């Protein structure tokens, strides 16, 4: 089967307008974008170019003002708030620039959180969360709270939390924005490894070309439109 015929994510003529009347601001002016399952996509562009808005839509946190967003066959643009929450629960994982771990909560409990909402029984929850911590190399740190972990470690816990439910897509919003270059590289290696090992689709917003270099596809945004798409598989390094 040709994967291009049925992409995991398909945006068609997606627009997003904030506000109404004369003060209305059009953040997205008609985006077309296909993302194949298993891809590693970096989204780049200056502030206000529409990349964050696109990521919010792709993360099912927001809906387009107009246009079509198909994800795994769902017409996301027509789903309500709770239906989108269930999509996120089942198919998406999030990694943020500021880590966004629950304070005063152990690494294990942070990673367990999505499983709690999924309704896994206690023992199974613990095992699954431990396995996820193991994948990011923090198994022995399971009982540490975020305050007792370094930035890089916190981001690893956040990644473990994002992948613990075996989602289809990992959305990372400037995951290395708060880290030094060495830690950044480690995080990128981790994401790349997860992408290659388990085939999870990674969508990552970044400002840094160094980080985008880890991706297979780079989407450049400008003024609410997709400016160009680099497919690095076609350009041998």
């Amino acid at each position, binding site marked *: 089967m040709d994967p291009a015929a049925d992409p995991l994510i398909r945006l068609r003529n997606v627009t997003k307008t904030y506000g109404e009347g004369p003060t209305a601001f059009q953040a997205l002016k008609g985006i077309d974008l296909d993302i194949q399952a298993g891809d590693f996509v970096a989204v780049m562009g200056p502030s206000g170019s529409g990349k964050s808005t696109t990521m*919010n839509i792709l*993360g099912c*946190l*927001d809906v387009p003002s107009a246009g079509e967003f198909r994800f795994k066959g769902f017409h996301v643009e027509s789903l309500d*708030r*709770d239906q989108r*929450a*269930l*999509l*996120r*629960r*089942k198919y*998406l994982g*999030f990694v*943020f620039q500021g880590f*966004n771990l*629950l304070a*005063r*909560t152990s690494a294990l*409990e942070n990673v367990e*959180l*999505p499983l*709690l*909402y*999924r*309704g896994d029984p206690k023992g199974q929850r613990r095992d699954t969360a431990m396995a996820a911590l193991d994948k990011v190399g923090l198994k022995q740190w399971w009982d540490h709270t975020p305050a007792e972990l370094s930035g890089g470690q916190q981001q690893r816990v956040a990644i473990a*939390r994002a992948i613990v439910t075996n989602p289809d897509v990992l959305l990372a919003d400037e995951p290395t924005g708060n880290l030094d270059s060495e830690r950044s590289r480690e995080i990128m290696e981790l994401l790349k490894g997860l992408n290659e090992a388990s085939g999870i689709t990674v969508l990552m917003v970044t400002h840094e070309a160094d980080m985008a270099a880890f991706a297979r596809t780079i989407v450049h945004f400008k003024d609410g439109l997709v400016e160009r798409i680099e497919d690095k598989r076609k350009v041998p390094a």
Partner: protein
Amino acid sequence: MFGTILILAVRSISRHKLRSFLTTLGIIIGVAAVVAMVTLGKATTAAAQKQIASLGTNILQVRPGQGFGRGGGGPRPPDFEEADVDAIRDQVEGVTAVAPQAQSTATVIYQGANWSTTINGTTASFFRVQPWPLVLGRQWTRAEEQAGKAVCIIGNTVRTNLYRGGDPVGTRMRVNGISCDVIGVLSTRGQGGFGDQDDVVIMPIKQVQRRFTGNREIRLMLVGTDPAYESAQIQASITQVLRERRHIEGGKADDFNIFDTAQISAAVTGVTTLLTSIVTAVAGISLVVGGIGIMNIMLVSVTERTREIGIRLAIGAVASEVLMQFLVEAVVLSMLGGLIGLLVAQGVVLGLGPLMQVDYLFDPQINMVAFAISALIGIVFGYFPAQRAASLNPIDALRHE
């Protein structure tokens, strides 16, 4: 799912112990105040009833004069006569026994120990009007009573002070200079609101009248009544008999009064119940204030935890789950507060009870009601903050600093 939400709520509470404690403080105080007030009120009522019951149930006290204190001015109404006692006993239906009483105070002496006490002259009917068993010795015989012999039955307080708890039966003590054979010891009745009832020496009324009061008059009649008869009916009959015997014309007021312990008991209960409800209402207000306190802190907490809510929403929590989490948190907090409040209330009752001379009393009903109300407060005042948390937009919530 509910189990999960409960876990989340309990985790969140235990992670913020001080904040949780401060949040529940209002509920703790409110519940403690309500439960302590109601419990103490009930205990006071029970204690008052017990004191009144110690006077004897189904007993009417008949005294000369109008009510307590014998009214103001005017000639003193005459005391009763022996014939009045007989008349009531014989003519009023429903009367089981009538005991006359003549009282005096005296100093009693035994082997160098002396004690000032009440001398109560009466007849053997005294023990038929009210059950007051002897722990030692015997009652006086009919012959001793009619002869007005100097025999006495002493209360426990007299025994303690004069005999240091020893057996006084068969000894002879001096009562205001008169020798008296001690023939019995009364069982203990204890301290009541009407003074120490055990601080008494009981003697045949004729002896008391002859030696101490110096007249044949009777200050008080204890009328034992058959519980099968209406107290009001008996009182009316007694009134009729006494008015006739004391020649009180129609239209003139009675110059004696009848005191029914059951009526007093009802009146005392009414007063304490009223006081209890007033104090409870005031305490109830503090419960509502406690609820508003919970709402305040929960609202602050929602604002403070906006980012956390954003994370939960991003991870895939649906609005109802966030709502339930905060609601359950509020309810768990208020129920915890309620529980602590109940414990504090028991402490207050245990601490204040002895000062107020009431026994500890656990009233399951008020405890359950107060606990249920604390849970209800959690729901009512927790809903609005929870609703606010659930309606947050995940994107804005995640950006919240």
